[in-house]
């Protein structure tokens, strides 16, 4: 059964159809691994053991009766920010503890239609605010490559569960790098699709103009399969793009001869770890060997992206999180009147980072400061977007490091918010510009920690990213699960 850890979704599907193993056996295999390993990794907030077995039995029935479904019997872990009907969804926050969504997110409906098996809900930074998953109100998730280190965040539970082999794939979300940075830290693939490519209906909102749902997996093929299923127009999301997701697997195996890869000089300057830099340069060499043409490009407003992002995302968050008032769902604290109840509920229900961002967002939107901060940031966002438009006249895809460093130690940055924010410095621009971007594992540093590179594409051109990522996957052929968890 262990061989399923190196098989892609289609290969597993074929084996299921042939009867080499049943969907129930497959699900039990992963449930047993969770039992065995997740005590130390702590990637799952909730394991839906009984439901998973029921879903697997149903998949077996559908397979036997010859029904089709691209995910029949495939066990998947879902970030706990995505609503699952009848199953607790907490956003890793005390304020939503016990919340049982009365509906499914659109992405969950689509996974269900294809016959997936839900293994459980995975850990994250509270309300997706953080870069290490340490802001979870419930537990600290560990990086399987070094358990003293953070898995990255905010989709740290997703990345760690994939890298430990505790699911076939996982859905995460990315507002400023929350899929790509943990994918990089844990040595797996993670895709943030074009803004609007995947419906946000049923995704608990953090910063609505930046949030996107995307897949994390151990191979490019699985990302391609999952994007086709979760992507495409949804009338329930007013920012959903009017397009149908195509079969992205057709891009896998296409050659990259003559493809122009942009290398932005601003991403290779200060603050980047020399081993990460070296790893990315090696990758560029590999792509050249395969026929790609490197082009030096400039994204001159890169250094302003982080400040711009933290104004915009906190402003949107302060507004989105106003709904947690102790009335409709979740925590309620007693108070002498309704205002007192709101204040006590919110101060007890939210963690430090969330409170910090609500305060900052309220400040930058408040009368007298709106022009200086929010409006200014929205204008700089235009400049950042234009940088990419110019750059994409010279190249088809941009290559950068995903994060300036490999995984940092747990506790290392938790007391210095600004230092923590800096670990997203290379991933944030793609969110501000709405562009698709993927983190691809490209090697290990001298401490055996995974290094990730980021591929950024033109709007809705995930295809080119898949093409390049697949070439890298085949050329590098890296281990995706640490030896300790491969037995």
């Amino acid at each position, binding site marked *: 059964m262990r061989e399923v850890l190196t098989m892609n979704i289609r290969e597993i599907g074929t084996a299921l159809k042939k009867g080499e193993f049943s969907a129930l056996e497959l699900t039990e295999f992963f449930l047993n691994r969770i039992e065995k390993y997740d005590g130390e990794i702590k990637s799952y907030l909730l394991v839906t053991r009984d439901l998973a077995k029921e879903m697997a039995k149903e998949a077996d029935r559908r397979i036997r009766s010859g029904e089709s479904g691209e995910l029949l019997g495939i066990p998947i872990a879902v970030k706990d920010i995505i609503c699952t009907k009848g199953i607790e969804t907490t956003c890793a926050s005390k304020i939503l503890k*016990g919340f049982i969504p009365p509906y499914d997110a659109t992405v969950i409906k689509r996974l269900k239609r294809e016959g997936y098996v839900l293994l459980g809900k995975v850990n994250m930074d509270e309300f997706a605010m953080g870069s290490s998953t340490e802001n979870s109100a419930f537990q600290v998730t560990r990086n399987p490559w070094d358990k003293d280190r953070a898995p990255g965040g905010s989709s740290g539970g997703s990345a760690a569960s994939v890298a430990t082999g505790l699911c076939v794939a996982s859905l995460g979300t990315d507002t400023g790098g929350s899929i790509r940075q943990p994918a990089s830290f844990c040595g797996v693939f993670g895709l943030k699709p074009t*803004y609007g490519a995947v419906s946000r209906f049923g995704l608990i909102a953090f910063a609505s103009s930046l949030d996107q749902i995307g897949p994390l997996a151990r191979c490019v093929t699985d990302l391609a399969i999952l994007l086709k299923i979760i992507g495409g127009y949804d009338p329930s999301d007013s920012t959903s793009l009017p397009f149908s997701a195509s079969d992205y697997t057709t891009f896998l195996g296409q050659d990259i001869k003559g493809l122009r890869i942009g290398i932005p000089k601003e991403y290779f300057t200060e603050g980047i770890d020399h081993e990460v830099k070296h790893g990315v340069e090696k990758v560029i060499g590999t792509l050249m060997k395969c026929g790609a043409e490197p082009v030096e490009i400039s994204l001159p407003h890169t250094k302003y992206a982080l400040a711009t992002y933290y104004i915009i995302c906190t402003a949107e968050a302060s507004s989105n999180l106003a709904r947690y008032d102790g009335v409709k769902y979740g925590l309620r604290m007693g108070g002498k*009147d*309704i205002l007192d109840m709101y204040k006590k509920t919110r101060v007890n229900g939210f963690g430090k980072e969330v409170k910090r961002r*609500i305060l900052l967002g309220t400040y930058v939107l408040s009368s007298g400061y709106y022009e200086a901060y929010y409006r200014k940031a929205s204008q700089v966002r235009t400049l950042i977007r234009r940088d990419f438009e110019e750059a994409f006249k010279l190249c088809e895809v941009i290559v950068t490091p995903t994060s300036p460093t490999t995984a940092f130690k747990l506790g290392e940055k938790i007391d210095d*918010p600004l230092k923590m924010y800096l670990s997203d410095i290379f991933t944030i621009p793609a969110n501000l510009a709405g562009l698709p971007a993927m983190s691809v594992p490209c090697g290990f540093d001298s401490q055996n920690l995974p290094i990730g590179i980021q591929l950024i594409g033109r709007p809705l051109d995930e295809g080119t990213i898949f093409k390049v990522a697949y070439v890298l996957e085949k050329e590098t052929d890296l281990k995706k699960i640490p030896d300790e968890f491969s037995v």
Partner: protein
Amino acid sequence: MKIEKETVKYIAHLSRLDLTDEEIVEFTGQLDNILRYMDQLNELKTEGVEPTSHAIEIKTPLREDVVRNSLSQEESVSNAPERKGPFFKVPPVIETEE
């Protein structure tokens, strides 16, 4: 200082957060630090630059106004921490005289 303790206190009130004095002090220091970092945006001239609120431009989608199924009343209040029958229950909003 970019931001004073009193301002943070006021913002905490606007944010409906009942912070302790200790927390106000801690957040003031951190917010000051972050706002200083954000000041670098002032290096840029942005006169006449259109602001971006959404990266990918799309028109407001319109649809026919037709009746569709929605959540039932029971489902809508099912997560309420306190309820009275099909209603959300809250502490007094308006003071009443006995």
